[in-house]
Each structure stands twice: as C-alpha cells, then as structure tokens.
C-alpha cells in the first residue's frame, strides 16, 4: 500500500493552509485530496469582497484570497489530487479514495487532517408545509448558479434566514435584476455580520423581518409564493399575522452543518453543540494522529480565522509525524454562562505553544458583560465586552506559563459574566 506522512482531506481554505503549514514545518510527503475540479473550495463562489482583512491587511474577494493560498501550495510543490473522493478512513489512518484515473486506491497515512468544510441545512430540516415545487434553493446553491454557472434561479425572491450567505445573495440577486421582497429571520436578531445587513439589505431597501418565518409554501410545479408569519417568544407562528408574498424563488440561509461523515467512519468523539469533532490544544481529535480544522470542526464567520486555525493543525500534525509529541495530562476546557462551546475542549499544557487561542460562540446577544477565564476556581483574566452575539465568533488567549504554574489543575472555564 502507498504511504504518505500527512494526508489532508479537502482542498479549501482550511486544507490548503494546513498543508502549507505542514510543509513549512518540514514534512516532505503531503497529499491533498479534493473532490471538486479545482482548489479553493467555497471561496470560488464567494465573489464579494471582505476577505483577508486580518491575514493580508487588505480587502480581497473570495477567489483572490484562495489564489494566494493556491499559489503558495504550488510554490511548495504540494501534490493535490482533484476530482478525488475520499470514501473511508480507518482508525489506523488508512485512507480509501477514488477518482477516474486511479480508480479506488488506499493510502496509509502517518497523520490525517480533516478539512472537509460544511454544507447547508436543507429545506427538509425545516418542516415547512407545502408541495415541493421548483424554485426553492439553499442560498449557497443559488450563489453557485449565479456566480459560477451564470444562471439566474429566479426573478421574484424571498429569503428565509439572515445568515451571511443569505444576506450576500440578497444583494447579488438584486444587482442581477431580481426583486428581493424580504429576508425573514426566525430569531429576534440576525445571524449575519452587521456590515452585511447594512451593505446588502439597507443599501437596496430590502426589509429584514426579524421574528418572522415562512409558514406555507405555495405552488405545485413552480413556486408561486410564500406565507410569512410573525413568531412569538416561543418561536411559534402567531395566528393572524400571516402575510402572502408572491414570488418564484425562495432561498434558504438557515444554518451550516459540518460535513463529518468521514469523521464518523473513524469513530472520533463528536461535540454535540458544534457538530464537529472534539479536539485538544493541538486540534487533534479523539483518534490519535487525526486532526481537524476549519468549518468541519466548527462553523466560522471569517475565513481568516479558518486559515489561522488550519495552520495550527498543519503544524501540529507535522510535530506528531516527526515524533515531537508528549503524552500528558488532559485538562478539561469548558464554557459557562452563555459560552456554548469551546474549541479546543481539552488542553495538554506540554503540547501547547506559548499562547493558545480558544474560540467559541455565545448563545444570546449580551451587552456590557465581561469574558472571564478561570483555572479551577481562580479567575486569571477578564475582558470587558460591550456586545457579543451568536453571529460573531469570540476568542480568549490561554498562556502556557499560567497552566504550567498550576500543577494538578483540573479544569479551565470560560464564562460570560455581568460586568463589574
């Protein structure tokens, strides 16, 4: 069987950044497996600007951001197999994949980096009553049709869900001549970035209807309209508030799900909140030598953070392969009081770098709070936060020296508290 030091599953922003970091750390045998016909993943269809402000200090479009990583991977001569689908990964890190040229083949990997990204929640997950007419798309599918294939999915549009892809598509469809009648959001706040609400909706006079949802889909062959209704605090429709909007297209931007079928095959431990694997400080899953990064680990809002996280996974996979690896005590890392999850969820101080970025999301909109970090019962840091919401990922930094100074430490807690 063919062997390879590090096999990276997925050639999107996470996979590319991980492979580049692993190569820069001195690994010669790396292979990236990508199922699409080109590298770059979802960035290829994200033609709007706003990428790379943190990484490159300039505002790039998705394809430009991807291109910088693709060029770097080419300079480093990292082999990538395109149009190649990974079918299975065993706990012993045997990767089974297939493509048209090689058929089915197996590789024994020294380490595996999972970077498969995420997919959109489909209509079937929502239980909206009505037939299944043509004209209902996930926002990302519509984005692919318009930006890559050059087709307009429809002319009269309603969007359900105010995630960033939905907001971006509201503007894109408008610029291409469609009329976007409304963006309906079940929650009393938007799941998208503020900047997108202003520049994609307000700029074009598109109403954002918070605490609203679609309660009926009309039409049998082609969508003819949707009924919107207001929802109460229990998120159930309020009778009497129904409003019919004629339209031929409904776009759904109702959440993203990490694509973890392969992780399931390996049998890695999963986190119920993120729907991604549970990982330690090295972004290693519960399967030894299997690492995870990017949207397959937890859904990000900014690609810059994906690149940072993936580079860490690549570097650590390289350390693992080279045997520069310590087995130590695992300290549990938990979120409390509004912190829904943390990535990572366990820390071995011996294996961490001087500083570790812990990323997480909060479960509600909080104003004038403080973010605190506790080592067992002792608070070691607090930072004032004027506003936090579920739509924007937060982070705190842990210092290796703080953890090493406390032998016997059992638990690290990140908490949202009332400001002092």
């Amino acid at each position: 069987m063919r062997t390879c030091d590090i096999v990276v599953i997925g050639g999107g922003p996470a996979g590319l950044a991980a492979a580049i970091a692993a190569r820069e750390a001195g690994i010669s045998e790396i292979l990236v497996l990508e199922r699409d016909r080109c590298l770059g993943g979802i960035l290829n269809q994200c033609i709007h600007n706003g990428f790379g402000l943190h990484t490159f200090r300039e505002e790039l479009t998705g394809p430009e951001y991807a291109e910088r990583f693709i060029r770097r991977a080419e300079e480093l001569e990292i082999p990538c197999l395109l149009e190649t689908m990974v079918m299975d990964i065993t706990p012993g890190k045997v990767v089974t994949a297939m493509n048209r040229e090689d058929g089915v083949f197996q590789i024994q990997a020294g380490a595996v980096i999972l970077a498969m990204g995420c997919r959109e929640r489909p209509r079937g997950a929502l239980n909206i009553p009505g037939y299944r007419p043509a004209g209902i798309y996930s926002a990302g599918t519509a984005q692919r049709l318009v930006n890559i294939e050059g087709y307009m999915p429809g002319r009269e549009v309603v969007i359900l869900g105010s995630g960033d892809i939905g907001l971006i598509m509201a503007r894109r469809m408008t610029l291409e001549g469609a009329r976007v009648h409304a963006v309906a959001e079940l929650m009393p706040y938007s799941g998208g970035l503020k900047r997108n609400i202003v520049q994609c909706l307000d700029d074009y006079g598109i109403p954002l209807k918070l605490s609203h949802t679609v309660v009926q889909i009309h039409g049998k062959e082609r969508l003819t309209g949707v009924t919107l209704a207001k929802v109460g605090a229990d998120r159930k429709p309020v009778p009497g508030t129904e409003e019919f909007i004629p339209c031929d297209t409904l776009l759904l931007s109702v959440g993203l799900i990490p694509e973890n079928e392969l992780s399931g095959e390996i049998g890695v431990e999963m986190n119920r909140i993120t729907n991604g694997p549970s990982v330690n400080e090295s972004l290693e899953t519960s399967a030894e030598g299997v690492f995870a990064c990017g949207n397959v680990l937890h859904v990000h809002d900014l690609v810059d953070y994906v690149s940072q996280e993936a580079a860490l996974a690549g570097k650590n996979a390289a350390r693992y392969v080279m045997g520069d690896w310590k087995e130590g005590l695992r300290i549990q890392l938990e979120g409390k009081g509004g912190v829904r999850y943390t990535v990572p969820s366990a820390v071995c101080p011996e294996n961490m770098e001087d500083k570790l970025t812990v990323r997480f999301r909060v479960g509600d909109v909080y104003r004038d709070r403080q973010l605190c970090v506790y080592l067992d019962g002792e608070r070691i840091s607090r930072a004032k936060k004027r506003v936090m919401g579920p739509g924007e990922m937060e982070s705190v930094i842990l210092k290796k020296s703080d953890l090493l100074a406390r032998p016997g430490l059992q638990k690290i807690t990140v908490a949202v508290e009332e400001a002092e």
Partner: protein
Amino acid sequence: MEKKELICIGCPLGCSVTVELEGSEILAVTGNTCRRGEDYARKECTNPTRIVTSTVPVDGGEIPQVSVKTASDIPKNKIFACMAELKKIRVKAPVRIGDVVLANAAGSGVDVIATKDVLGR
C-alpha cells in the same frame, strides 16, 4: 433640516447613529459611541462609496464566467450604472487576476478588474 438614521458598521456594536443635515452640510452626529462612528456617518451622508463585485462571461474559458470587482470603491449611486455596463461585456480567455475588463466604470474613473485566473480550454 433633514435627519438620517444609520447603523454604524465600524464594529459589532452597531450603534444607531442620527445625522442632522441642512442640504449637504452636516449639523450634528449623535448616537455614536466613538470617533469611528462619526467618521462613518459623515462619509455615508456626504460621499457613500462601495466596491462592486460581479461576474462576466468568458468565451473559450475552462469555466463559463470570471469574477470581477471595481479596483477601488465607487460612489454608491453609480452601482447600477456599473452593473448595466458589465451586462454588455464578454471577455476572451485567458484572463488573469488584475486584468482590466471594463475601463472607467460608469464614468467613475475606476476600472473593473478580474479577480480570478481563467485559462483557455
């Protein structure tokens, strides 16, 4: 006197900012909680600009379309004129990142450039 309500995009706080205008002269900016809010509100009320991104069909390319953007931001009121001009355009492969696909978009003085390499078939 005219009043304009804006949401500041400077940070996640999203302050509701009120601008009082007399014609094109700004009399007062209120509701912002930092300097960035005032700067944003003044720019939005006097000279709002945006980067426009879109796609253009490619003849003979390995993929059907190339993504494009205005090389810098253009006045907000020229967005639709810029889109109308882009609608009339087709380009021939190969196209390289940074190639000008439309010069002086909608008289803004700003070129529209490719944001992706598209090779020939």
